[in-house]
Structure formats: C-alpha cells, structure tokens
C-alpha cells in the first residue's frame, strides 16, 4: 500500500510542478470555452442552451490533451520499466496512476467549471449540475483514456493515434453527461436528472474495473 501511496504522491507532485502539464489542461479548457462565443456568436440565451455541451466537450478535450503524459513521461525517463518490474500488481499500479492523474488533471477541471459557467450565462443550479456530472464523469474519461495511453506508449508516434482510439470509447460518457446536465437545465421537470446521472455513475464504475486491467495487459504485452 505504501508503494501505491508514494506513487500517487509522486505523480501528483510531478504533474503540478513546472512542465507537468496538469494545470495547462485547465488553461486549455478555459481557452476552448472562450473560443465558443466567437464561433457561435455572443447570444447569451443560445450560450446558456449550449453551455453543458460546451463545458463537456472542453473537459473531454482537455483530459485527452493531458492523457499521453500518463505513461509517456515515465517511459522516457525509464521509470516505467521499474514500475513494470516491481512486486506490486501492475493493475493496481495502473489504477493508482490513473487516480493520481484524475486528482491532478480532472479535479481542477471540475473546480474551474463554476467560473466558466459564469462566462456561458449558466445560473447557479445549472452550474452545480454540470459540475456534478463532470465530477462523476471525468474518472470514466481518465480510466478509459488510460487504455489508449497504455497502447500509445508502446508505439513510436502514438499521440495522434491515442485520440483516434480513445474518442470513440468516450462517446457514451459524453452522451449521458450532457443528457443529465440538459435535464437539469433545459427540460426542468420534463426529463429526470437521476436516470442519465445514474447511468453515468455506472459507466464510471465499470471503467474503474475494465480500465486498469486493459491498460496493464497492453503495457505488459507491449513493453517486452
């Protein structure tokens, strides 16, 4: 357990320090959201209608941007080989690394959401709903994305391929995340918030199980 704990602490520390790139994700998220009014016009009602979708897309792209650092940096400095050789089960190590990645890169996105919601003219309850769905949904993005990151780390130039492989897998998360947010904002009363929200929770829990095993398998097979 102490090995996993120190691994999580190490990953978070690297991610938050200079060149770690976790907080760049938030900056990217902000930039995507700021770009939207330029693309679709500054109509505040339209922005409030599209708000959840914009926030979800921004978070999805931002988490994708930081994903390839999950194993790539360790691969470059050789510590991935040490992790593979250690006595801790690789599945647990993968889960710990994904948890650290989510804490360093996913949680800041959720924290930034209320500020960005102001820019998109979302009211308090709507912002809370979007932030809640992001809080539940971003672990699923990290844990499914980890499979792609583990596949890409064994390739020579896997960065672009990572996006192609991961994005189709993240579509269900996007669908139910936006559906739950929309139910809380646009169709208040006509659609239930809890149905898509619980499906989103289920997807997150399932990816928590599948992700580490698939990532560990592809690391084990890819690195030898």
């Amino acid at each position, binding site marked *: 357990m102490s090995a996993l704990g120190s691994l999580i602490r190490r990953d978070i520390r690297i991610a938050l320090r200079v060149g770690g790139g976790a907080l760049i994700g938030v900056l990217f998220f902000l930039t995507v959201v700021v770009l939207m009014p330029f693309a679709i016009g500054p109509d505040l009602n339209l922005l409030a209608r599209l708000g959840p979708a914009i926030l979800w897309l921004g978070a999805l792209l931002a988490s994708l941007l930081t994903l390839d650092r999950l194993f790539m940096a360790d691969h470059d400095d050789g510590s991935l080989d040490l992790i593979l050789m250690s006595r801790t089960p690789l599945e647990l190590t993968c889960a710990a690394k994904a948890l650290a990645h989510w804490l360093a890169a996913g949680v800041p996105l959720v924290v930034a959401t209320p500020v960005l919601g102001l820019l998109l003219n979302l009211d308090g309850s709507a912002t809370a709903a979007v932030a809640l769905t992001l809080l539940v949904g971003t672990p699923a993005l990290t844990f499914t994305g980890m499979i792609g990151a583990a*596949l890409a780390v*064994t*390739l020579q130039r896997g960065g672009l*391929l990572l996006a192609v*492989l991961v994005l189709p897998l993240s*579509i*269900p998360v996007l669908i139910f995340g936006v559906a739950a947010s929309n139910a809380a904002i646009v169709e208040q009363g006509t659609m239930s918030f809890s149905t898509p929200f619980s499906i989103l929770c289920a997807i997150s829990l399932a990816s928590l199980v599948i992700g580490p095993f698939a990532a560990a398998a*592809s690391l084990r*097979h*890819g690195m030898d």
Partner: protein
Amino acid sequence: MTLTELANPTRFLSLATRVLPWLAMLTAVLLVFGLYQAALAPDDYQQGATVKIMFIHVPNAWLAMFVWGVMSVASLGTLVWRHPLADVAAKAAAPIGAAFTFLALVTGSLWGRPMWGTYWEWDARLTSVLILFLMYLGLIALWRAVEDPSRAARAAAVLTLVGAINIPIIKFSVDWWNTLHQPASVIRMAGSALDKSFLTPLLIMAVAFSLLFITLHLAAMRNEILRRRLRSLQMLQASKPVALP
C-alpha cells in the same frame, strides 16, 4: 485432425488452398440464387420496391457485428494462447469488417432517404454503427502503427476486446432507445415478424454473405501468412553479413 494441428500455419495454408476454390464457387452460386429470390420477392405494401434494399442491408449489418465477434475470439487466442494464427485471423478480419460496416451504413442511408426522408439521422442504431466503423478504422490504424507484427497483435487484441462492449449496445440499441430505426424483427423471442416471402430470401442472403466473409477471410489470412514469411525472409537476408569484394 485436432484443432491444434489445424492451427499450424503450414497445414492451414495447404488446407486453405484446397478449400478456397470450392468455397468461392459455393458463395457465388448462393449469392446469385439469393439475389434471384430477392428479386422475386413481392413489393411491400408500404415501402414498394425499396424494401429490396433490405436483402443487401441487413446481411451487411449482421456481418459488421459478427466480424467484430470473430476478431474478439481471435484476440482471446492471441492474449491467452499467444497463437500466431490468431493474430493473422484478427488482422485479416479488420478491413473486411470495416467494408461490411461501410456498406451497411451506405445502403442504410440510401434506404432511409425514401423511407424516412433523410439520409442520416442521429438515432441510437445509426450512431452506434458509425462508432463501430470508426473503431474498425482506429484498429486498422493501430495495426499499421506497430512494425513488429506480434506486438501489434497484442496491442490490437486489447483494443478489440475493449471495443467488444459496443456490440451488445448496437444489438439492443433499438430496444433500449425508442428511435427512428425499426426494432428487431427477424430474431425475436416471439418468432420472426417477417412474412415468409421476405424471410426466406433474407436468410439465403445472410448465409451467402457469411460464406462470402469466410472466403474473403481465408484468402486474406493466406495472404497475410505469405506476407509474414516474405518479411522474415527479407529480415534474414538483411541480417546476413555482406561479402566484401
């Protein structure tokens, strides 16, 4: 002959060479017969002659999902038994599956235009099949990104098994979400909803398309084995010390 004997690439090659001409002939005969039966089938009282697109569209859609299933089984073979023939089977199936998926999407949208008034609709079945097509393309890209075939096989096998989650979603999408696409009508607990005059040609076409897949798959596997032999011969040639003049 046991399965392990059959799984020997050399034995497989000789068997495939013997079986392929017969399979190809049988496929051609059955395809012609099925198309003839489909042409004889009556027009639908609502849809008119356009219902005949079904005889091409439905087998393509079935095969699109079936090929991913074949690849998933082959991926298990790759990961569990590390058998090189399983790698070959998975790799050879991916482009064929992508082609079936593409044809299902194209014929579906050609059918959708007169029936639903639109080429494309973002409903659950259509969207999930489009995702399947994207995943086929991603998988082919992954196969091509890794130079060493056995490493590529293991990476692709993991992705194939993760992507297999999509198959039940496609199958049940018309039951779970109430959308434009019609619900399942051929394979149901309560028996088929199709009239016999439509069902018989459809089943013949389904068998013909399955045979077409098996023929193409065997041929592609044979080509892939030969390609790998060629590659290893080239590597051997390149690693030989050069005699200096």
